[in-house]
């Protein structure tokens, strides 16, 4: 820690501040400097973050760290710095223009309560690009893009931040004598603190709309806005809350066991298996268990799924490849085994079923009306069996039946995968379902 006493946090190394004569930014930057002097923070531990807009020219005039980013995104960089290094003091400076383009970041930093300080230099227009209207331009205000007066309503930045849950919100003008003290208070807040500071743009907005100090206060009064500290409701800062939540919840983290070869197999070549059913029939997770069982049997395996973005409705289809060698091509152009267990699955897979070659065996729930196909058809009472062993185990029944009939690898491997990767209670049901599946083809 430095023992230097800082009388200013500004540097004159690159000359005087670059703002237009009379611009409110001069006063705002001076107030921030006074606040920093008051707090005597180590400049190495302070970051001034800005983005595009006249106020964004100011970061490099401080002796602190400086981060100057894309238009409207200062809050995101400030949050990134604070999340990465909670020990840093992070102060973001933005204009009203930046609050428009980056409005969502304002809502979200307030809601998350990330411990940065946001100072908005609010002068009702875009100074840097030639005085266009912004989200805070008063209705009727003349700007280069509202030549006949602004027909849009102004956004209440403080009200917006408050609605989003900001912990500390202050509204004032650059003429406020107490501004340095309140900036210092804001910086000392552990959570998110925002100051909405109204000022004059002497290049564009003030001359065009004949607005000076008195008119600025009149405008505030006409809105019925309060000045001063509007909200002061501290709550845990994001990173503190994040650590606490993790510490409280981390016990649920589990490692998945690995798969060692335990069984032999009878798979001589790359073999493609497709299973088509309905969402909610555990098609994907059962296909994974089947693939894991093949790995227990010394095979290489891949799995791809096809399902709609909704859950528990429509089709669910899984493609499994097992192979004694490394699998290169992961698509199944010509399946060796095709399993269809429901109407949804049939509907989705119909075009493929119609094109199945004679080398393929199609295992189908017996109640389904199948299209013409060259595949060898084996009908199985899958629904009926699943009714007995458990509705959610229909895919286990089907894949166990296929396994028993084809002898690709031992049914024990499937049962091992089930008991290794599923919770004991579910595994118990599924091992029974697998046995029931084997029964279907052995009788």
């Amino acid at each position: 820690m430095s023992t230097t006493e800082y009388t200013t946090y500004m540097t004159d190394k690159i000359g005087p501040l670059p703002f237009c004569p009379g611009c409110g930014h001069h006063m705002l930057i001076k107030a921030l400097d006074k606040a920093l002097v008051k707090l005597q923070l180590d400049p190495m531990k302070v970051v001034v973050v800005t983005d595009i807009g006249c106020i964004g020219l100011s970061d490099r005039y401080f002796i602190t760290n400086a981060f100057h980013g894309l238009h409207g995104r200062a809050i995101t960089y400030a949050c990134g710095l604070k999340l990465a290094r909670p020990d840093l003091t992070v102060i973001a400076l933005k204009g009203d223009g930046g609050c428009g383009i980056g409005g969502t970041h304002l809502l979200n930093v307030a809601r998350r309560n990330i411990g940065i300080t946001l100072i908005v230099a609010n002068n009702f227009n875009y100074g840097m690009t030639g005085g266009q209207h912004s989200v805070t331009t008063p209705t009727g205000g003349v700007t280069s893009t509202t030549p006949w007066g602004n027909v849009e309503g102004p956004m209440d930045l403080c009200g917006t931040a408050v609605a989003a849950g900001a912990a500390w919100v202050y509204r004032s003008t650059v003429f406020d004598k107490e501004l340095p003290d309140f900036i210092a208070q804001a910086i000392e807040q552990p959570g998110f603190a925002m100051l909405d500071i109204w000022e004059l743009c002497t290049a564009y907005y003030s001359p065009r709309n004949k607005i000076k100090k008195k008119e600025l206060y009149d405008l505030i009064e006409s809105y019925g806005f309060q000045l001063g500290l509007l909200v002061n409701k501290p709550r845990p800062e994001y990173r503190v809350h994040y650590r606490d939540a993790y510490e409280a919840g981390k016990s649920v983290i589990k490692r998945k066991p690995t798969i060692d070869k335990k069984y032999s197999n009878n798979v001589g070549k790359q073999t493609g298996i497709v299973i088509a059913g309905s969402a909610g029939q555990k098609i994907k997770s059962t296909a994974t268990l089947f693939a894991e069982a093949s790995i227990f049997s010394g095979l290489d395996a891949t799995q791809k799924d096809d399902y709609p973005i909704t859950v528990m409705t429509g089709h669910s289809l899984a493609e499994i490849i097992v192979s004694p060698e490394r699998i290169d091509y992961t698509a199944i152009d010509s399946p060796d085994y095709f399993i269809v267990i429901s109407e949804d699955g049939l509907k989705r897979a119909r075009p493929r079923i119609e094109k199945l070659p004679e080398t393929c065996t199609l295992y189908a729930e017996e109640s389904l009306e199948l299209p013409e196909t060259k595949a060898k058809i084996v009908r199985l009472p899958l629904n009926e069996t699943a009714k007995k062993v458990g509705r959610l185990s229909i895919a286990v029944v089907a894949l166990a039946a296929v396994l028993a009939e084809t002898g690709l690898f031992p049914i024990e491997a499937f049962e091992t995968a089930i008991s290794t990767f599923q919770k004991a209670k579910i595994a118990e049901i599924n091992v029974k379902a697998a046995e029931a599946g084997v029964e279907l083809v052995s009788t």
Partner: protein
Amino acid sequence: MGREFLEGNEAIARGAMKAKCDFFAGYPITPASSILHYMLELVPQIGGTAIQAEDEIASMGFCIAAAMAGRRVLTATSGPGISLYSENVGLAIMGETPMVIVNIQRQGPATGSATKGAEGDIQFTRWVTSGGLPIIALSPATVGEAYELTYRAFNLAEQYRTPVFVLANKETGVTKESVDLDAIKLPPLIERKRAVPGKEYLPHYFNKLTEVPPISNFGGNHIARFTTSTHDKTAYLTTNPAIIQEMIDHYTAKIDEAADDMALVKKDLEEGAETLIVSYGIISRSAAVAVKDVRSRGGEISSLVIQTLWPVPKMALTEAMKGVKKVIVPEMNMGQYLLEIERLAPPGVKVIGVNKMNTSLVSPREILQKGGLL
């Protein structure tokens, strides 16, 4: 460890953790969302922070700033998300920010098919931001490579102080494969070169154009500065054309001139073969099957699989194309890397694109057919 049955997205997350990633920000998007899920669970376990941001722009903003504050940073999205990352990718290049960006490509343009694969973002990645400076992009073909190349992406990001893309595909991201991650050999971990404490710090200091400036993290041993604006070595704004050109030459040279050093390719070249298949990503596996098929019929054929898509591994490509009459370039797009091959192919060499963008893989058969190998 032992074998596991994993999707590529999980391997990417595990590769990042192996590379000591301690910061993640991302926004949900199919088919990349599971990387966000894995990272949200894994990163706090080592004391880091992982956060779901309000959008892709914020994800990049969080990441760039965290990287400049010393974190090892990952973000992940899909093509539409990269569109929103674009401006901030430029910022990361401009500020020489080490970070890794994963793109699990899906069928585009626009929303396209969220759950379907494609590799339509190859040239988009190369020219991802305004200004058009070089970037690094790695393309995994398997779940194992997703792990390895994500790890290597961190090394490249730190070594060259630049954003590095892992340009994967839904077909590698959410396809499960059996893999033993611990059996994969990885190079030693590389950390960014740090500026010497006690000495003056220039955030973009270099002597030779190719030199990568040492970094001082925000909150570290120096006052740090970072800017989106055209700047000199001190990170102060400049309008001096000579300095501007020097900085642009530096950003360009540090990547382009290292292209052959960082090149990762898999050569399977056959002496005297007149046909070469150049492939990358998931389609390199279809190419492997096609190559086996040709050879099983007594034919001669060479294959070059490219993992470092950008910068183009010129030397490896030039060598592989020596003496061949035909180069076949299969892609899950309408012919993007083909442009690079056409650019580098010696005169008289026929370059054939095998292109498909209908959400299904380019099959070995299509390569054989369109490549005239049947």
